[in-house]
């Protein structure tokens, strides 16, 4: 699907770290490749597992998490509606995940100071996707598979394949911020 963002860069996911740290707050980017999907309940489980010293069901090192919980796919479709959820609710759990190698996040809305500090420390980037454009964004998703915590339903961890998925850099690896 044709994306509307005009001044856009094209990047692959998982990111090449060299490319990632070149991005500046305000840059529009279209992403192609694979992403992890996790939101509130999955983050809570990640966190509890780490506190018990257990391994996570997926490796986050070098990966990107899209904060999202889709609607069920209609028969024959890859996914349902699939726009971003508010990132700030994941703030409590995020610094720990960044320290484990998570290198980018996609959501909407503001992040805490702790998350921004952990992002600079780990040279990570936070992107926003357009909130409330779930039908449109679903057209940029070419595959979706549940990879952990299936019992969480809409909050299960998924692996998505995306093509030209439009995002904008809200917070860059050097600490620059759009909001």
């Amino acid at each position: 699907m044709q994306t509307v963002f005009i001044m856009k860069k094209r990047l692959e996911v998982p990111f090449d770290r060299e490319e990632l740290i070149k991005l500046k707050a305000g840059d529009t980017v279209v992403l192609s490749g694979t992403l992890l999907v996790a939101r509130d309940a999955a983050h809570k489980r990640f966190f509890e597992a780490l506190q018990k010293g257990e391994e996570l069901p997926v490796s986050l090192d070098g990966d990107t998490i899209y904060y999202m919980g889709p609607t069920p796919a209609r028969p024959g479709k890859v996914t349902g509606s699939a726009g971003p959820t508010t990132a700030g609710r994941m703030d409590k759990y995020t610094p720990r995940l960044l320290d484990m190698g998570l290198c980018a996040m996609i959501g909407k809305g503001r992040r805490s100071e702790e998350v921004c500090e952990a992002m600079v420390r780990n040279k990570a980037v936070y992107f926003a996707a357009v909130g409330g454009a779930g039908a449109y964004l679903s057209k940029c998703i070419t595959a979706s598979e549940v990879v952990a915590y299936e019992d969480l339903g809409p909050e299960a961890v998924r692996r998505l394949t995306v093509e030209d998925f439009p995002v904008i850099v809200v917070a860059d690896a050097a600490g620059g911020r759009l909001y």
Partner: protein
Amino acid sequence: MGTGVSVDWKILMREIDVKIITENIKEMCISVNHRLSDDMEEAMRGAAKKESCGRGREVLDILCKNLEVAGQEQIPICQDTGMAVVFLETGQDVHLTGGDLTEAVNEGVRQGYEEGYLRKSVVSDPVIRDNTGDNTPAVIHTEIVPGDRVKITLAPKGFGSENMSRIHMLKPADGIEGIKEAVLRTVKEAGPNACPPFVVGVGIGGDFEKCAILAKKALLRKVGEKNADRPEYVGALERELLEEINKTGIGPAGLGGDTTALGVNIEVFPTHIAGLPVAVSICCHVNRHETRVL
């Protein structure tokens, strides 16, 4: 059975089977999640034409395209298909038959969210947080009104914006300036978190819970529509607040621009000599609602 009294009731009361309510709620759950009301759609398209910031225009174009894709391909407008909020105005001359009304409403939600491929976003307990799996229960506000009709309004609410709604218990001395300040502060805090452009519902007066319900109900009024029954100051306040909100620069998706809200709708109610309650219900651009009268 067969007494004079029951015969009189039958004459006076219009009977409505609650199964009809179930059926209507089911249909509305599906329709509101795929298509916005005409006033909302027009407001979005109008804003996309008027927005002066390039980035803001791009976002509004995406949102207009999103509405097209949603309608044409039957993909929900937003993946957060909301918690179902149902306003039921039941005429006092109506006799509801065929079962439990609350259960009938919840059954409509259950069927609508399943058959419409909508997301189940409700947990059974706020602390334990197990997903109920069928998006029930709905939040139901029932009112008994004169007449023999039942008016059903369904307004599913996403929580990105619901989380940014606030109640301010102001002092009478805060007056209209205090109200403006409270609304503006709430909108600025909501910012990019709540998917602007917003529709801002404001409830002024009543008590703690009454003002919240007024604010929610204000979202049901068409954007830009005046309400002749309200005191004079309300229309001016709505216009002024809309202007101020659009001067914040938050813009579509919070990425900058002059379309931060599409409308401000205010409802008022008498209040106590000691109080000035103000509730601000923030709704994202996916302001979904439909009303049917049985």
